[in-house]
């Protein structure tokens, strides 16, 4: 421990990443929460999960996205939420890459339910990789300033 606080710019950057990624996950969860039927079909069309896991994933995944997004924004258990969001992005990237590699046409279902083409799949892979880079940067931050955890003393205040 150096005893030096992270700079204001650094703390600001981490806060912006937290708000952005949290908001992104909340936004992405809304249409999935509204229509489990449609989301289950999206998961089916990825052709990765066995049949008996499709419905449970369609039920649980949007809830986890929503809660992780909210926790990240308010900064309560923010480390755990950041970990979940990073892991989710990794899983999405693997699923999209796998389907691109085997030439399957599918609808990503990320933010809406609409048919997407291969070009769109490449675009969303690049987009998810950018989000992943942001999530990793956030996860590596030494302190989540201006979060509830920070207020409660669960995040370092005086030392970095």
């Amino acid at each position: 421990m150096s005893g030096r606080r992270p700079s204001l710019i650094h703390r600001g950057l981490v806060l912006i990443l937290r708000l952005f990624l949290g908001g992104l996950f909340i936004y992405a969860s809304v249409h999935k929460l509204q229509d489990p039927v449609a989301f289950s079909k999206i998961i089916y069309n990825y052709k990765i999960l066995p049949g008996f896991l499709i419905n449970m994933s369609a039920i649980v995944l949007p809830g986890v996205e929503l809660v992780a997004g909210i926790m990240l924004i308010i900064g309560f258990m923010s480390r755990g939420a950041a970990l979940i969001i990073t892991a989710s992005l990794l899983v999405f990237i693997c699923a999209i890459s796998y389907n691109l590699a085997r030439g399957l046409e599918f609808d990503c279902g990320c933010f809406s339910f609409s048919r997407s083409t291969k070009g769109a799949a490449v675009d969303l892979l690049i987009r998810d990789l950018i989000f992943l880079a942001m999530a990793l940067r956030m996860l590596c931050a030494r302190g989540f300033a201006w979060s509830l955890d920070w207020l409660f003393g669960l995040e370092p205040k005086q030392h970095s």
Partner: protein
Amino acid sequence: MPQKHHPLVRSVIEAAVVLAIGSLAGVVNNAFSSHSIPCVGEWDKTYGVPSPGGEHAATHGNREIGLAEARRLFENGAVFVDARPAGEYREGHVAGAISIPEDEFRLYLEEVLRVGEERPMVVAYCRGMECDEAHLLAGRLHDAGINEAVVFAGGLTEWSRAGLPVEKGGGGNVR
């Protein structure tokens, strides 16, 4: 419990808590959703058109038929309705089928009523096993009072693969 655990251990514990609360939120949301699904769906294609199951799935309430029964109904003069968009219908459809694109159902109400008057047995189909337009259309036909609408699950794919009559072009009612 400030700084009780190693930061990494704390992160993992927190992640587990977030996962548990999120899962619970998902389950509660599904229970109260107007599009709720059961815990396990019917995704095995050998048993019909794959769907999440439950009363909100497109496949709910419709009878699915296989190739043999579709063929028998075809020979007995049942009405075949093509639930795909009109463009796909023009490129090829079951011989004699009429086009009622599911997403433009309202525009085709006249055809629907005419079908209902002419022959009671209606067979709806779309591309194949993994499209649900035929099921959605059959549901709408039921709502319109055509009670004997069934779904040929294999759709045009299975029909043409079996060498059964297919034709191209506009047909009588395509807009």
